């Protein structure tokens, strides 16, 4: 066990995973509410589920999985000191993030236009479980979208530092840890997708 290592990549990885654990618990609270309310309002959740945009969501699933591939490849590229490749892979990842957010904007615009948003008159007039479903929907996907935004920004900073040679095989921590963060964003969506779009 080294005491004063100049670089401790295992330590950096451990620290990052511990942070990811906290993100799991953060979203976990919202999943807990979903679990409770889906049991209580099966009918209203199913009814709302029929109006969800499977097309947008499936597209977003593909987009996020692809972004995960690209960022994982970027890690490999940095480890191999393929600076240019890494930069473009990161660019691709960020592009995917942007596409995801655009899709979300379109999806939500259409729903808001139909009068479905927190505390809307339409939801207030509807059955109780419906409000709860959409409340959870907007909060969970909104929090996730915020993480997409944060992750995308982080990766943009990393991309610039890769291009400037600050991040490289001898100093890959920022690349590796940002990629881990991005994968977490992907992981959360992997569960959001069936819960809100498939099982209802």
């Amino acid at each position: 066990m080294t005491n004063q290592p100049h670089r401790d990549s295992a330590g950096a990885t451990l620290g990052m995973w511990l942070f990811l654990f906290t993100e799991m618990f953060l979203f976990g609270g919202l999943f807990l509410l979903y679990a409770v309310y889906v049991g209580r309002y099966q009918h209203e959740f199913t009814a709302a589920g029929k109006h969800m945009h499977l097309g947008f969501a499936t597209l977003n699933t593909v987009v996020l999985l692809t972004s995960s591939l690209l960022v994982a490849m970027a890690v490999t590229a940095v480890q191999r000191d393929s600076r240019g490749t890494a930069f473009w892979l990161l660019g691709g990842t960020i592009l995917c993030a942007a596409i995801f957010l655009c899709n979300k904007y379109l999806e939500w615009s259409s729903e808001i236009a139909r009068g479905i948003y927190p505390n809307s008159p339409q939801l207030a007039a509807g059955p109780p479980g419906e409000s709860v479903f959409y409340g959870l929907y907007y909060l969970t996907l909104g929090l996730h979208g915020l993480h997409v935004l944060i992750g995308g920004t982080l990766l943009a900073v990393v991309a610039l530092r890769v291009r400037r040679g600050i991040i490289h095989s001898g100093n890959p921590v920022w690349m590796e840890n940002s990629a881990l963060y991005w994968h977490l964003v992907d992981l959360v969506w992997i569960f959001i997708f069936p819960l809100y779009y498939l099982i209802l």
Partner: protein
Amino acid sequence: MNSAETTYLPTSSFWNDTGKTGIRAWIFSTDHKRIGLLYFYSVLSFFLIAVMLGLLLKLELMTPGRTIMGPQTYNAIFTVHGVIMIFLFIIPAFPGSFGNLIMPIQIGARDVAFPRLNLFSWWLYIIGAAIILVSLFTGGGPPDTGWTFYVPFSERTSTNVSLAVFGAFVIGFSSILTGLNFVTTIHRRRAEGMTWGRLPLFVWSLYATAWVQIVATPVLAITLLLIIAERVLGTGLFDPARGGDPIMYQHLFWIYSHPAVYIMILPAMGVISEIIPVFSRKPIFGYKMIALSSLAIASAGSLVWAHHMYTSGMSDTAIMVFSFLTFVVAIPSGVKVFNWVSTLWRGSISLEAPMLFALSFILLFSIGGLTGLILGAAATDIHVHDTQFVVGHFHYTMFGGTGFTFFAAMHYWLPKFYGRRYTEKPAVIAWGLMFVGFNILYFSMMVLGMEGMPRRYYDYLPEFARLNLISTIGSWLLACGLALLLVNLFRGLRRGEPVGRNPWGGATLEWSVATPPPTENFTEEPVVTHGPYDFKGAGIP
């Protein structure tokens, strides 16, 4: 005696060996010792503000009816007292201050695993605290919901709940980052020979605490965000009219806030495990069991949250399950108490200030813990839930427990970092005043609770007047003792008798370095060959 000297640093040390001076050298320092002191003075300042609020509350309760304030003010003051004490003092206090000051040295490290993250944690704490303070004087005024922010009131009150809760959210982030920093540090930065079996018990307790900070605090984060969403967006997740369930708020809230009390008490128990062997000149009894019991308390403590909810309307099944599990949590705490007492047995005991606070901890925490069982047993809880009994219980554990240990740690460790010490006699008197005042103040509350006086009530029935008066007088005694303690301690740190390398004869690594320690802690990398309470092995008589 050098008490007349203006400079009080005997040698080159972390106070002056970086070459940087001024306030920027402190608030932008990544040295765990400087960060520890920054935390120390921050938490102490907020503690004192909240003490004043507490004294005001007791003043109001001194006589029935209105004494010095109206009911809205009273509600705001007990809310702010709780918010400051819990989020700005007791949760960050030990990990942030003594955890930072002591833990890296105790494991033989130069610093924590992520020093810049450590500084960032302190800044988040300060920013969150500032946000909370701003919320008191803006918008609809200070929150009046109690620190627990229960729905539906927290959704509807016009007071500045959203901002206050956001401040707590930011502080929660600080706690999370400290937790992950400490877990990584303890795994990755131990010196050669510092095996898990040789770790000081303070480190074990900080390790267990750090895990709780990591797993529980995010649930608080989402809960606080949900309050803001309910207020600002009207999502209705806890609104029965729209299908929401207010009890779900309580589940989410207590999933954090129960483990949070173990964040509060575990490091304190760790400190007691440090002080008792040193002041008994005996190795700790049952080292392994104490270490494991910290992990057991952290684990089992994560499973019992709904014992705060017996009267909320949740199911009888849940009541029984959580009541049973709550009994389980008492067991590892009992293990610690038995082991401390066994350590004392046939020890060569010296009753200096740190030891007095440590010994009184055992009594006060035991009272707190046993009354916790009365609360944890569902049948008896029905009678005392939301009464002054609860208030007495948690002040015995949090104040008599963690609070008194904080004072113990101040007397035990601060001389090491300042190179000077307090005067013993006034410290003992201060302790005496505090001990007597504390028990008068809080034992009365438990009797009042048993007799039926509710908590968070501005007024009370005339038959409760006498005990309330007695309780308030206890608060003044306690406050006098606290004032004497602080004056004596800080005078001593500035101008008291100089202190050598190992004034108490401890065998843990912090006593092996210079007083005060240099910035890099160790002049050469330490190699550990003996256990933390092996006085013989460390060559200490």
